[in-house]
């Protein structure tokens, strides 16, 4: 029943988003725009600049900025017609509502990031296929960290007038650790260094962050939504 409720909320959010494409269009365009602009700043043809060394930073800056745009809509979408009240009055745990929304956000962000990864590879002439599965794993774990924090703060700021501003201000400080881990791991992988050895600690940090903050979100979401 719990899983069914989670999937029902996720399916509803995905269906609504795919019909309007409000968040996807804006976030994907923003993500690609950042990558294009950075390609002007760091000339990929210039041999003095080691693109794989800065690739992790470039990618995750684009990902995290675009994520703030997309995640802002997550609970704000429920304000229209007072839909949030109907969801809170329904017999589903607040954590199921949270997980459903997080799952939909994760799927959308991941899809956009994979598209951007392809564009990044072309723009910066970076080979991504050599470590593609490890890269996708790191992207998935980093994206889940952003999704959990972003969805939680989207719930927390849903009734604020300046929520578009408040969400990134509140979210980014919490993301310093997982973004550092994701950037380091991504740069390593694009440099041809496989997972394991020195970088396994960052992998553990990323995984630990995901577990801890997902648990905290589940514990706190009812208080955040109902007070």
């Amino acid at each position, binding site marked *: 029943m719990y899983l069914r*409720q989670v999937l029902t909320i996720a399916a509803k959010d995905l269906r609504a988003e795919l019909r309007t494409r409000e968040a996807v269009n804006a976030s994907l365009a923003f993500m690609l725009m950042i990558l294009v602009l950075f390609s002007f700043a760091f000339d990929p043809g210039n041999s003095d600049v080691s693109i794989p060394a800065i690739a992790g930073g470039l990618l995750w800056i684009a990902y995290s900025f675009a994520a703030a745009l997309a995640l802002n809509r997550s609970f704000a979408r429920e304000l229209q017609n007072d839909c949030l*009240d109907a969801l809170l009055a329904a017999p589903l745990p607040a954590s199921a509502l949270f997980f459903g929304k997080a799952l939909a956000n994760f799927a959308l962000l991941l899809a956009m990031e994979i598209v951007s990864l392809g564009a990044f590879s072309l723009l910066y002439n970076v080979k991504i296929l050599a470590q593609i599965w490890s890269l996708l794993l790191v992207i998935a774990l980093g994206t889940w960290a952003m999704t959990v924090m972003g969805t939680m703060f989207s719930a927390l700021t849903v009734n604020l007038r300046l929520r578009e501003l408040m969400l990134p201000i509140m979210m980014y400080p919490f993301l310093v650790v997982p973004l550092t881990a994701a950037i380091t791991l991504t740069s390593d992988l694009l440099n041809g260094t496989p997972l394991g050895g020195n970088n396994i600690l960052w992998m553990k940090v990323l995984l630990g962050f995901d577990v801890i903050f997902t648990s905290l979100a589940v514990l706190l979401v009812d208080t955040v939504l109902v007070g």
Partner: protein
Amino acid sequence: MSSAAPEVALEISGVWKYYGDFPALRDIAFNVLPGSTLALLGRNGAGKTTLLRILAGLSKPSRGSVTIHGANVREESTRRRIGVLGHGISLYDELSAFENLRLFAKLYGIANPARRIDEMLERTDLVRVRDGLVREFSRGMRQRLAVARVFLHDPEVLLLDEPFTALDDRAIAVLQALLNDMHQRGRTIVMSTHQLREALEAATHVAMIQRGQIVYAGERRQEMVDDTGWLYRTYGEN
């Protein structure tokens, strides 16, 4: 509305609600009997919506407690038994009428949802727009669909916040028919309203709230129906 009743549908005990330092509700305490229709009356800002939101579990009281059929309102099993109609229609513009109702049917775990959805669409005269997106609906159609959503899971306790406000004639007729049906089947209804005549005619009990306090809670009396100003003159400030 008697505390001596063997069973109560809603039990409200010493409920206070503060917004900052301002007490929006002050020591609200009364019971609602199963099968009764309670008209919650009061002027704008008296605290009706705040109280209804607490009854619906959408807000927590600062002090005091609310139980529905003896259970905490935030328990999932309790929420399954209540239907809430607030100021908004609580429907998604991007989804069709059927998809909206299916969403809530799944969340409430309704058996055979498609049949129940079609039944409610028929009762609200929305069958022909079953697959149309809500954003393309007229205001009246949206309101009727909101009514269908509230009654979809056949709730035992209905909490309605000014349900007749902004409804068109057709939606009022649909809502009244469904409310009559619910009342005849022994369901409990609590509704806040400004439409005194309609509310008092339908009500079996009345609670009047003024500046966050209950000034009258009891059975509806005939003089309330005969003279809708009587209640405010007798128990109100003016």
